[in-house]
């Protein structure tokens, strides 16, 4: 009997203790923030700096890119206070905003919007309202291994956008390089619509209907099929690229370690490739199809606030802090996304951005950068198209894969019509 009472008391005091720690937590708000799965040394300094500046605790989770989207979808559809704030991929702004998952930021950022590069505000807006705070934009360039070119006796490509290489010329180089200095001549860093839509777009294909809700007739159009057939043959016919490397970060590893001689990738590689001490690489503009026009990918990460958050003030403080030049300069130094704040461009104009790679990026952002489709159904569009792109890389019938993706996208778009 005594034992029972003692157990009961222990249990009760435990419950009381848990209750008080719960209270303590609520008083010093700690923000729950899902983040991209970048290496921790590219994330922790930013979070630490915010904690130090604000006194607000932050619990961030680093999730691989596809997991991030799935996790957010599951948590947001529960429609409760979690997460407090989250990373929003630019084209998903409309999707989240239309479903009430984003707090409008116009009030918070009143009078501040003039400090931003205009295209980044467009990506973060829906119905003429800013819902997602821009953290940067993005641009893709062609990285090449200088030693491999010397070893294969090839002349290095030109860094002048006026002298931009065609995909046809790249294929010749890739064929000459494959099996010589590196195992593979060429690779795209990722297999997703962000990375690969510039292929059909450069070919001249429209990638979504004018209403933003129709894929059939666009995703399965002849131009799209032809461009993706060219892509598939890199893997199946010419065998100049490694198939099935879908995990994030693998391609940077393969290029950095000399297994791949050329890679189309984002500016974050300028920083990321520094850890390969033996690598001597050059940067030239993104290639295009001789019959078409130059197109480059753009758009990037934004910060969104969950309107249901129990820590709204703290979440707003995080957003406000992320709009300061200090925070954005730190963000840039960690990940090297082209800045969203004009001030960072100006401050680093004489230092970072004199690098020829950044001259190319500035040219692309001004001339060839083409955002991903603007549609509330971008989530559905991306999900099915990414699947099709992976299947195509693996050798699946191109026309059939695209037709299936188009039909599936149209089916899921019905809720937005």
């Amino acid at each position, binding site marked *: 009997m005594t034992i029972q009472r003692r157990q009961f008391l222990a249990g009760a005091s435990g419950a009381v203790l848990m209750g008080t720690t719960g209270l303590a937590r609520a008083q010093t708000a700690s923000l729950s923030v899902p983040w991209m799965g970048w290496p921790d040394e590219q994330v922790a300094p930013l979070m630490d700096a915010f904690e130090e500046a604000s006194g607000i605790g932050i619990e961030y989770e680093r999730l691989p890119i596809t997991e991030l989207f*799935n996790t957010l*979808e*599951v948590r947001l*559809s529960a*429609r409760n206070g979690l997460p407090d704030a989250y990373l929003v991929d630019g084209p998903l702004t409309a999707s989240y905003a*239309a*479903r*009430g998952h984003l707090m409008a930021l116009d009030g918070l950022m009143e009078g501040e919007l003039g400090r931003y590069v205009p295209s980044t505000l467009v990506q973060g807006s829906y119905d003429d309202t800013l819902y997602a705070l821009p953290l940067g934009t993005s641009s893709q360039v062609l990285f090449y291994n200088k030693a491999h070119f010397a070893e294969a006796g090839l002349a290095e490509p030109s860094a002048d956008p006026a002298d931009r290489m065609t995909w046809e010329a790249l294929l010749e180089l890739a064929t000459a390089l494959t099996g010589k200095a590196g195992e593979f001549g060429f690779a795209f860093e990722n297999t997703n619509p962000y990375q690969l839509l510039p292929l059909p777009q450069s070919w001249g294909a429209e990638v979504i209907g004018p209403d933003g809700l129709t894929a059939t007739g666009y995703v399965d159009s002849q131009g799209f099929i032809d461009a993706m057939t060219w892509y598939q043959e890199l893997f199946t016919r010419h065998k100049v690229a*490694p*198939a*099935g*490397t879908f995990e994030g970060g693998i391609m940077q590893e393969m290029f950095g370690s000399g297994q791949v001689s050329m890679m189309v990738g984002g500016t974050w590689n300028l920083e990321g490739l520094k850890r390969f001490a033996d690598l001597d690489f050059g940067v030239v503009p993104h290639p295009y199809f001789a019959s078409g026009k130059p197109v480059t990918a753009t758009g990037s990460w934004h910060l969104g606030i969950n309107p249901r958050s129990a820590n709204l003030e703290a979440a707003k403080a995080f957003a406000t802090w992320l709009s300061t030049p200090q925070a954005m300069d730190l963000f840039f130094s960690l990940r090297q996304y082209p800045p969203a704040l004009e001030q960072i461009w100006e401050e680093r104009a004489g230092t970072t951005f004199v690098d020829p790679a950044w001259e190319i990026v500035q040219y692309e952002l001004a001339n060839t950068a083409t955002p991903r489709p603007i549609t509330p159904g971008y*989530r*559905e569009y991306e*999900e099915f198209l990414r*699947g099709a792109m*992976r*299947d195509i890389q*693996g*050798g*699946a*019938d191109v026309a*059939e*894969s695209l037709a*299936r993706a188009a*039909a*599936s996208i149209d*089916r*899921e778009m019905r*809720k*937005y019509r």
Partner: protein
Amino acid sequence: MNYSRWTPFLFLAPALAGLAVFRFAPIVVAGAGSFSGMTLTGALEFAGLENYRWLLTDPAFWDSLRITLIFNLIINPLQLALAFLLAMLIFQPGRGIWVYRTLLVLPMAVSTGLSAVLFKLVLDPNLGPLNGILEWAGIGAQPFYRAAEQAMGTLIGIATWKGAGYWMLFLLAGLHAIPASVQEAAMIDGATPWQRFRLVTLPLMRRPMAFVLVADTAINFLFFAPVYILTGGGPNGATSVLMFEAYRSAFTFSDIGRALAISSFLLAILAVIIVLEFRLMRSPEDRR
């Protein structure tokens, strides 16, 4: 002793309550939810038969149904047969038999999700060790879960690696429950080992086999984690089983009505198939 006719129910109450909360309530919620839709802002609204009408006119659904049925037509008999074979092999006591028993049961200790992750590494077409071995042996690298022709087979292989040992345990218990005297009597009557297996062992194993077949079917119709982890329903929809379709509708495309309609449909098919399986496995005595 204070005994009333309600006493048994009192003892059964916790189990019945669990059954009601964790089994029947979700079925009711899914069934009712399949007649509703969710607006973009998360409000539920009555949709009548709209979800089912959409489903039945959607080629992706019929593809997925076909894939689910083919998957189950292969995996359930395969796992039952393999489990039975394994049970027969380790039924006879012998030196070191515990080593084999342990090895066969070991995959059970690995969770389904973890086993999918392990096989993703082992079978990775580029970096996986198995392709290294196959190339060394002159067979050549295989695409495994990355090719439409091999993906389903790969998933069946992984599920069977994990499942066969588990189901074997039930059949092993069934074999031990067959009285030795019956086998002895058959031997004295001059039955050959094959005759003893076919006319004594097999008929007496009907009930454990029926249990394994039905339970295995129920699990395999709800097969999900390896699809999510390894193939994402691809390549080209080759492994898009109904559970995965339902998951994607609910959690990727926020179309909860379609997800619940698929779940309800799945439950109905499963109920029909399990009734058929019970009839198939009924022994002649039960039929009377």
